[in-house]
């Protein structure tokens, strides 16, 4: 074949200075202005609503906790208001909070690349001097940071709003729908949803299917985390003195992962003995007398109660573990997206 022996053209510097990264700030802002404006506006409006509603709810809660005697009619009215109307609203908003990252991923993440591919503008964008890999990195990084920051700030308003309901309806910080919306988890889940959206958009190349795929993939990941993954974060403790709560039936703020019993000599307690003891307490009530009696019964039969649990003091370490792997996975997904952009041919 023809051997190409063309001399390098004169004046062509071999190491071109690339177009500066900061130029992408305006590009990203201008192209994604609808997202970058509407997301803070929508979440800001919800935050204002939460603040107004939250003031009333905090007030109601303060009245309720200060109300004596609890059995009086006035207190019962306060109680039904708080556990009825207020709780219904808070629960609805909590469900919305759990869906919000998926929606942000679908509406802000999926179209970023899918729109370019669907409308053909990638043929403009990817042939400019900036280079398509750098263009993708800059765009996704800026948008990811913006979306995550807005979501993180918003979730702090929600955390304040939701405070009175922790401890109600057996909700703790470790409840599935609470853990993901508190601390830094909400921001991290928003980030992963955005990254899933970007990858789906690049992989599927159509906006609507990519949005659907984002919702599906996010829901799958969130469910898998709630049901299987979160309890395996390496932060659980084991105790044979469940002093936090001697009864195995309920725990206050800690997350009890499993409870088991050993008899004399460390062997598993005989099931018939356990059944005998539990038969004494037909109702899983938790009065102090019941717990005391239960403890006595266990001691009498030389049975030790074991618990694997995550103390509430480890809420933040749990948050960091969750946010950590979500962040790592997000970076991985964005890297995969950039890889696809680099390789995927028209």
């Amino acid at each position: 074949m023809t051997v190409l022996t063309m001399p390098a053209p004169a004046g062509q510097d071999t190491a071109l200075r690339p177009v500066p990264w900061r130029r992408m700030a305006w590009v990203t802002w201008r192209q994604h202005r609808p997202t970058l404006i509407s997301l803070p506006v929508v979440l800001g409006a919800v935050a204002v609503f939460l603040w107004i509603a939250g003031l009333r709810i905090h007030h109601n809660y303060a009245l309720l906790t200060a109300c004596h005697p609890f059995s009086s009619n006035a207190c019962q009215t306060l109680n039904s208001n708080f556990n009825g109307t207020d709780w219904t609203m808070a629960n609805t908003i909590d469900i919305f909070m759990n869906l919000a990252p998926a929606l942000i991923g679908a509406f802000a993440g999926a179209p970023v690349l899918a729109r370019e591919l669907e409308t053909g503008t990638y043929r403009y964008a990817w042939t400019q001097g900036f280079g398509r890999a750098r263009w993708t990195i800059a765009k996704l990084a800026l948008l990811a940071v913006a979306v995550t920051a807005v979501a993180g700030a918003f979730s702090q308003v929600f955390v304040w709003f939701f405070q009175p309901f922790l401890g109600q309806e057996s909700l703790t910080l470790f409840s599935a729908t609470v853990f993901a919306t508190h601390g830094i988890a909400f921001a991290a889940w928003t980030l992963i949803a955005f990254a899933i959206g970007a990858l789906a958009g690049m992989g599927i190349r159509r906006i609507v299917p990519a949005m659907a795929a984002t919702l599906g993939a996010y829901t799958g990941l969130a469910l898998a985390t709630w049901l299987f993954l979160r309890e395996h974060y390496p932060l659980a403790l084991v105790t044979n003195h469940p002093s936090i709560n001697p009864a195995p039936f309920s725990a206050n703020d800690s997350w009890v992962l499993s409870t088991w019993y050993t008899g004399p000599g460390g062997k598993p307690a005989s099931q018939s003995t356990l059944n005998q003891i539990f038969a004494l307490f037909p109702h899983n009530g938790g009065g102090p007398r019941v717990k005391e009696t239960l403890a006595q019964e266990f001691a009498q039969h030389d049975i030790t109660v074991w618990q694997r649990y995550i103390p509430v003091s480890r809420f933040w370490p749990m948050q960091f573990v969750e946010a950590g792997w979500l962040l790592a996975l997000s970076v991985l997904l964005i890297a995969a997206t950039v890889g696809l952009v680099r390789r995927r041919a028209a």
Partner: protein
Amino acid sequence: MNVIETSDLGKRYGHTWALRECTLTVPAGYLTALVGPNGAGKTTLMNMCVGLAVPTAGTAGVLGGQPAGSPAALDGIAFVAQDAPVYPNLSAGDMVHLTRNLNRSFDRSYARARLAELGIPLKKKAAKLSGGQRAQLALTLALARRPQLLILDEPLAMLDPLARQDFMATVMTAMADDGVSVLLSSHALAELERVADYLILLSRGQLQVAGEVDDLLASHRVLTGPAAESDACAGHFRVIQARRAAAQAHLLVSTGGTDPDSGLVPPGWEAHPVSLEELVMAYLRAPGGAEPPDHSLTRYNEPREVAR
């Protein structure tokens, strides 16, 4: 310098080769017409030259041997894809600013002057521009980058005759003023016949002809003579297309570099020059068009060797 050099370039989508075994060079300073019917592989070839598509086989070098899609190549080549894609929700002024931000060099005053001259308001959204205005906007953005090579994919398809003329005038001015080389694809040769000075002809994913227009015209002839002797006559030349009308035969032949007006023309036959359009149509209609029988004769711009 060659603005494009491809070697055995091929691209396969699934089981179909959109382009295969394409070896060609396009020297700098020409307006090169890339011609072929729909689906001939023109867009595929262009996409590989601008780095949008990755070759399945072979290599594509641009601007004197830079790999296609490399930073230097992106910097020196401006590409206007088919249908002149611009962001519909951005205004013409935004598109100017966007392109300026995405490139190392950008002549903003040129872009603004051109748009003013064309009567395209800077505030108007790209979605509201006419097809002709959109094509002119895309071309202006490309030229304001001051590229060494301008690649235009079917730029005239969406334009009316008047807009075609305006568009080509802009291209020709840029060539004259800045010495930019141009590669322009079209499925119709009519608008390009008078302006193109280099021709690449693709058909069904294969290179048919590549060469300077003047050379191509000089090395092809229409021979007219008695139909009965046409087979004997065809023995001397490569026949691209043969038409027989009653007693007369018209053979469009490639003289393969020999002087067509020398004594090779058999007695009783007349040789006439061909027009570029005749030549293109002959190659596209040729029954063996997908597989030229003799590669050494069709590829004028490479050394005469058949390394196959």
